[in-house]
């Protein structure tokens, strides 16, 4: 019924993905020090959050095999993630931490 086992990545791919994750982590740490020197502010936050998001998606998609999974769990999982980010952003903005400027 499921085609799960046919499409799993091979060990070589797993290693490549790990290498990619490692590179992204190096970038993250580098950004931290670059920002310390240059004071990029919002841009730094944007880059770091994008990098984290990318790592997140890679681990979920390939290591957790969500890419190859039936639609049901991926919907639940995505719903949980989006709901959490959305709700807590609203809480933080209502409490004045996150300021949304139009």
């Amino acid at each position, binding site marked *: 019924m499921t085609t799960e086992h046919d499409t799993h990545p091979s060990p070589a791919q797993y290693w490549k993905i790990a290498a990619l994750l490692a590179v992204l982590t190096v970038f993250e740490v580098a950004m931290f020090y670059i920002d310390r020197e240059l004071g990029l502010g919002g841009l730094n936050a944007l880059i770091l959050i994008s990098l984290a998001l990318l790592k997140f998606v890679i681990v979920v998609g390939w290591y957790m095999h969500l890419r190859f999974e039936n639609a*049901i769990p991926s919907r639940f999982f995505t719903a*949980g993630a989006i*709901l959490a980010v959305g709700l807590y952003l609203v*809480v933080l903005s*209502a*409490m004045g931490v996150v300021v949304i400027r139009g």
Partner: protein
Amino acid sequence: MTATAERPRTTIFKRPSSTTGWWSWLTTVDHKKIGIMYGYAAFFFFIIGGLEALMLRIQLASANAEFLTAGAYNAMFTMHATTMVFLFIMPASAAFMNYLIPLMIGARDVAFPRLNALSWWIFFFGGIFLYSTFIFGTSVPPIGPDGIAGNLAAGGGPGSFNWLADSPDGGWFGYQPNAGPFYSPGTAMDYWALGLQLIGLASLVSAVNFIVTVFNMRAKGMRLLRMPVFVWMGTVVAFLLLFSIPIIAVALFMVTFDRQFGTLFFAPVGGGDPILWQHLFWLFGHPEVYILILPAMGIVSEVLPVFSKKPLFGYSAVVFAGAAIAFLGFGVWAHHMFSSGITPVAQAAFGLATMTIAIPTGIKIFNWLGTMWGGRIRMTTPMLFAVGFIAMFTIGGLSGVTHAVVPSDWQQTDTYYIVAHLHYVLFGGSVFGLFAGLYYWYPKLTGKIMNERLGKINFWLMFIGFNTTFAPMHWLGLQGMVRRTWKYAPETGLEPWNVVVTIGAFIIATGVAVFMYNWYHSRRHGEDSGLDPWDARTIEWTIPNPTPEYNFAVSPVVSKLDHFWHLKYDQDDEGRAVRKEDADQIIAELQHVGLNPPEPIHLPTPSYFPLIMAAGLLLMFYGIIYHTTAWGKALIAIGAVVSLAAVIGWAIEPVEEPHDKPGEERSEKVQAGV
């Protein structure tokens, strides 16, 4: 698989196997037995919560009364609300969900039978834990950093029953910092926070269980949009629990850490922000409101079509409206905080969002009315409760819209107007719905029908009592009577209506007493229900009453929504339902097959471990409260060891013992039964 041969006899203990006797209840993994236990426990707490409410009403029946001390009054309103929300309506809904969802989707059990038992035991121990505060809990005078007195819990003041004050007294919403370490010292609020943590854990586990059950265990042909509305609402509730319980878990952990380990999450003096508690609490608390009402809406959506002899009007609209209510329910929490100083933008946004909830709710109400319209209505007791539900819930819903108007809400906040509103939706709504369900599904439990005459007396007492109690609270509130305050002055002129309210509360209590008598009486003397006492529509009525242990002798195959109805009825040329000539024969055959399974049925084997694991958790939670003492630490350690042992035992034993020779297994059961 020849796994049997290589595996040693599962565990050190012999697996429990009896299916009767009290021991079978402790080790059962049968969703029906678990549902029944949830039901009785919930009803027990309903009585306790009701007695607490009566004490509040006696206190308020006269101005400046001194029936209770201030501290006892605080404790009573806190425990009344906590009990009714977490220990009555939630487990009562869980009882219906446990008993009915597998039957309604044509399954023999839930996806994880032992986890189901674990949920039940954690809930039950959580309830015991919370109520043991009356024995072990303490409230001592506040030790505010500036010497500011907090609540009067320990001081008492004039009045009696002050011993009751040694229990949680910070409100069911546990607002901080009032319920924090400085203003509510003593262990009572720790019992509250940790008790709710346990109950929440139970709900989370059963939410996972029910979601998997509904998505993976449906009988052949039972597509998602053929499921009874009750199953749909149960699923929606499971999702609400899934996403809201973790929020309150974190918030309660923070409270516990503030109280036990000196963190500063909600302590303003140390930089903590009490508003954070309000956000987290209501982020959970508002979905919780729908967790309380949606199962009742599901029950009503089952009862109305049966007694109107018509299909539910707009099935898919009702289903989607339920899902929409749940979804919107996550986006409106701050309407509980309009007077807490949130920004005007937030007030406007949350006010508008709240009003949008009226749309799906309105859809449901019109669908229910549409179901009854032109139907052949039979005013049986379940139907009376269902119709009562619609009327009372509509009133509660309308007063709810008035809170969505922010300036109006400022006037209503913390007055009896709010108390009136919430009881119209939770009592007039949820509780009436649950009673409709109890009368409707009683035959499934017992094979008898509850006495109709007593049922009608029960309904009218509750209906009249309910309105006598809660309708006057609207105007009491608008006249400025504040809630959660133990006294009012005679000059306020509030006394006459308060007397009426108290009389109403006792009428409700009489109604509940009639119900209890009816429940007990009908078991012995009730009319035999047969297989299909109500001319029902859904497949839980295609099996004999009381439900056999294996549910379905033959796994059902479903071809339509309201499958059972279509087995019995055809349509004539004008679209009217006409009972098939052989309908009675079909029913007789179902009865016969249902009692005589053609081949042996293997059910999940009972297990000790859910009970043991929950007991270990209970010990640990007691230990946390007294963690500064040596024996408290010992309790944590013992509890951890017990739980861990249970986890190991659980992991080793299979869900279902292998049955190489069915005959042998059966004789074993018989022996154990003796």
